[in-house]
């Protein structure tokens, strides 16, 4: 019963902590966060070990079997997502603790900015909901957890308190609610047709008929809106760029992955046999467009956080290449590569946003022009940014390289040269915007005199996360083995034309 305790704990511990900090309004709120992070790390480790030893686990929560109870399910990919959440979550927690405590003493702070007290309950609820989503075994629970994630994410963006941030938060809220409606409609259709919401049961009974296609399309479109796949990315740059420093990384790194994970689950575990190949390729084409469009927009930005946010638009594009590639013989490689890329991007992007947040706190602006020579003051941060950039560009040694290598193998092995070209071109464009930042920061222009000292933790947290990405390019056998546990039978399945 090892796994059951770990799974329950991963959901309940942050939730309980959120309630405690909110109700007691304790002054040692950051300590609670750090304690949760430590417990989560232990639980994730425990669960990973158990899954590696004994394969996928399904547990009915509290012993109630379906259809009454809420079943939890953990396989390789959900554990990888949990590891990702724990890594990014724990470092963000430490980062946030330092950030908000520094902000309280910041003379530049306007009175409208809310205090540290508001951040923690929201973040802990978000954390709990993320874990619950990755462990959900039915499509309705997925919906509930996704809503929780959306609501807390919107509130977290609003924490920045500036008009820009509020507008972005509202826009995000509307887009996300729209997405939820589509998804819920699809779930309702499925339930009325098949009488179940468990995705295991759906996978066994799903038929290739019009109603199923409608349901699948509605659900996927709703989720695409939340995952910000081009051209539905309109809400993302403003929302991610204007959020407070610790929040941006969480949004780009984790929140987007939640809805993407749902698409992966639904597509490959439920709808894959009944989806037409053309639908998969359509997603891949949109993904390719996202890579190019997002990268070019990133290059054109003057604000670093916007640059990094557009980079997310591009990187999300990479995640969608798998839907076309998986229809062909080497699809399994693409699937593994995509799952690993989701992990790599989360760590790299969160690190990049943390660096941007720290430097923005230091100089009071994220305009690239103001960052001239900043690397001479803060070499550690620029080093972390460069390491994260290595993964975003897909250069070795990094987790991003391994993921891209797998994707490229699938693309070229299947003779999909256009996809291979986009993958490589996207990496080069990423190099353009990453090195634009790094080049400016290393220039010998004299840095501006008025800067705030950066708390030590705001240097180390991004560096640790960036190191994880590099280590993820060296220690790869374990994560890839993990992904084989409960992997969808892509290769074995005959695909409908």
């Amino acid at each position: 019963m090892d796994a059951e305790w770990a799974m329950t704990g991963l959901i309940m511990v942050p939730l309980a902590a959120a309630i405690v900090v909110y109700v007691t309004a304790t002054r040692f709120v950051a300590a609670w966060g750090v304690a949760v992070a430590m417990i989560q790390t232990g639980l994730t480790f425990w669960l990973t070990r158990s899954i590696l030893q004994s394969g996928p686990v399904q547990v009915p929560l509290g012993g109630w079997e379906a259809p009454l109870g809420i079943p939890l399910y953990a396989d390789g990919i959900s554990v990888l997502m949990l590891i990702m959440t724990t890594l990014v979550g724990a470092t963000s927690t430490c980062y946030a603790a330092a950030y908000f405590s520094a902000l309280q003493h910041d003379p530049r702070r306007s009175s409208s900015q809310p205090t540290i007290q508001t951040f923690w309950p929201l973040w802990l609820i978000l954390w709990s909901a993320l874990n619950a989503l990755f462990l959900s075994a039915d499509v309705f629970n997925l919906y509930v957890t996704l809503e929780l994630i959306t609501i807390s994410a919107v509130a977290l963006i609003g924490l920045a308190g500036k008009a820009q941030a509020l507008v972005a938060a509202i826009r995000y809220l509307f887009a996300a609610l729209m997405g939820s409606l589509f998804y819920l409609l699809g779930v309702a259709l499925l339930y009325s047709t098949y009488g179940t919401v468990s995705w295991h049961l759906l996978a066994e009974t799903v038929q290739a008929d019009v109603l199923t296609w409608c349901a699948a399309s509605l659900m996927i479109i709703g989720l695409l809106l939340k995952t910000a796949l081009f051209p539905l990315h309109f809400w993302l740059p403003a929302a991610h760029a204007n959020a407070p420093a610790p929040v941006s990384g969480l949004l780009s790194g984790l929140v987007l992955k939640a809805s993407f994970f749902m698409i992966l689950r639904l597509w490959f575990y439920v709808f894959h046999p009944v989806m037409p190949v053309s639908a998969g390729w359509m997603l891949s084409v949109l993904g390719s467009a996202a890579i190019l469009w997002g990268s070019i927009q990133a290059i054109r930005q003057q604000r670093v956080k916007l640059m990094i946010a557009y980079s997310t638009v591009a990187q999300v594009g990479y995640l969608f290449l798998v839907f076309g590639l998986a229809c062909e013989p080497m699809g399994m490689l693409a699937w593994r590569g995509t799952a690993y890329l989701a992990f790599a991007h989360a760590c790299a992007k969160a690190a990049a946003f943390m660096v941007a947040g720290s430097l923005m706190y230091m100089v009071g602006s994220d305009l690239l022009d103001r960052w001239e020579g900043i690397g001479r003051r803060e070499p550690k941060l620029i080093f972390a940014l460069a390491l994260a950039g290595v993964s975003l560009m897909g250069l070795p040694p990094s987790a991003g390289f391994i993921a891209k290598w797998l994707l490229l193998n699938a693309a070229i092995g299947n003779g999909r040269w256009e996809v291979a070209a986009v993958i490589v071109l996207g990496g080069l464009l990423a190099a353009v915007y990453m090195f634009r930042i790094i080049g400016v920061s290393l220039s010998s222009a004299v840095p501006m005199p008025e800067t705030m000292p950066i708390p030590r933790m705001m240097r180390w947290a991004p560096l640790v996360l960036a190191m994880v990405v590099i280590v993820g390019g060296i220690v790869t056998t374990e994560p890839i083995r993990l992904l084989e546990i409960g992997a969808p039978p892509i290769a074995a399945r005959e695909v409908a034309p």
Partner: protein
Amino acid sequence: MTFQQWLPLLVVASSLIPGSIIFVLGEQQIKLRTALNLAGAVVKVLLVAIMLWGVSLDQEYQVRYGLVEGLDFALHADALSLLFVSLAAVLWLLTTIYAIGYLEDSPHRRRFFGFFSLCVTATTGLALAGNLLTFLIFYEMLTLTTYPLVIHRGTPDSLRAGRLYLLFALTGGAILLLAVVWLQTLVGPVEFSATGILSETDPALYGSLRVIFAMLIAGFGVKAALVPLHGWLPQAMVAPAPVSALLHAVAVVKAGAFGIVRIVYDVYGAEFCGQLGVTIPLALVAALTILYGSMRALYQDDLKRRLAFSTVSQVSYIMLGTAIAGPLATTGGIVHLVHQGVMKITLFFAAGNLAETLGVKKVDQMRGSGRRMPVTMAAFTVAALGMIGIPPTAGFVSKWYLGIGAAQADQWWVIGVLVASSVLNAIYFLPLIYAAWFASPPDAWPDERPRGRFETSPALLFPPLITAVLTLLLGVFAGFPFSPLEWAKLIVLQEYAP
């Protein structure tokens, strides 16, 4: 793990570990940093010496680590890798000493020496790479670790040069990545083996293999500065002198040339290359590069730019020897890998000394510099004569083997190229040497900064002196065991094994 597995790892780690520690140290911990640097460099030379001894006794040094299926990280010491890794180890030691003297009291030395060590780590890694993938990994790592060195000064000029360098190198890397994945999907993982692995391939794939060959050469040609992919190299001259020395003699340019040697001999195989008909185009590109680089060098009045174009030209001797593909020409090409490194690093050390001590950066400012800095200019002279190919320098040995190799392969036009290039080399080097020794020095040097009681500080003086002596020794004692020439013959024996 046995010692045979540990040794290649240790050779790579001997610069990786000092480099990593240097990043953690403070900027002002100069003594500790210097000690670490030198210790790492000395240890690397010793380890390589052990390895050299072992390989000459037919020991196998190999280590392998699976990343993903079809993606193995493999280090393997064969005769060819040892040639390159010995060059890198010895010249790194000298360049480290030089850099310590050169950068005295300048800012950001921690960053410099950290990346300097990582750069050498990448170079030794790709020298020891046992398969194409490992090579690719270190090749990209080399791009990333040299960028901070190129832009070290942080001036707008150097930032522009850095951008150009990245544009070329990363695009080359991307083409390389595509080619490697493509090759792997056709024939499986590509291990380096002495006579190539592709000769058994299905003839239906010959077309694809030709395209892949072109892509691989283009990818490596960017770093090897094959015309028309050489545009970044002259711009990268804004980097500090030790960086230029390393870039031109050991790390970047050589990595590209070494990659091409690997592709031709250890992936495709010399014979199979001939069968595919790809050697002649490669030889033509190399010949064009040799002539073009020399021509452009004539017109440069900036000393370092002249040397840069000279590199463009000289490195292509390696490709030329590789592409002619007879045993003797191959010997000439491979041995030039070492000889060019030793000669070119001498020239850059000397140019750096002139710039640091006298402020001399232009060619016409060199008048009379031989009287003010006799040792430096003597070293410069020896290396320049070597570049022209005058006996008994190392450069003569390379050219001799290239020439008789061309004759053996019935490629008489190559001898014409060699003669033309030697003449051009003479035209752009001899006037400098003449002016340095026989013209009278100016009343005042542009920016004179005396350093110590010698003509310049010892750390700047001894490295070029040593490499100049090496240039002579490598020529005079070319026939001795363990000389680069004998070692190159050993490699050729393996490559052309029946």
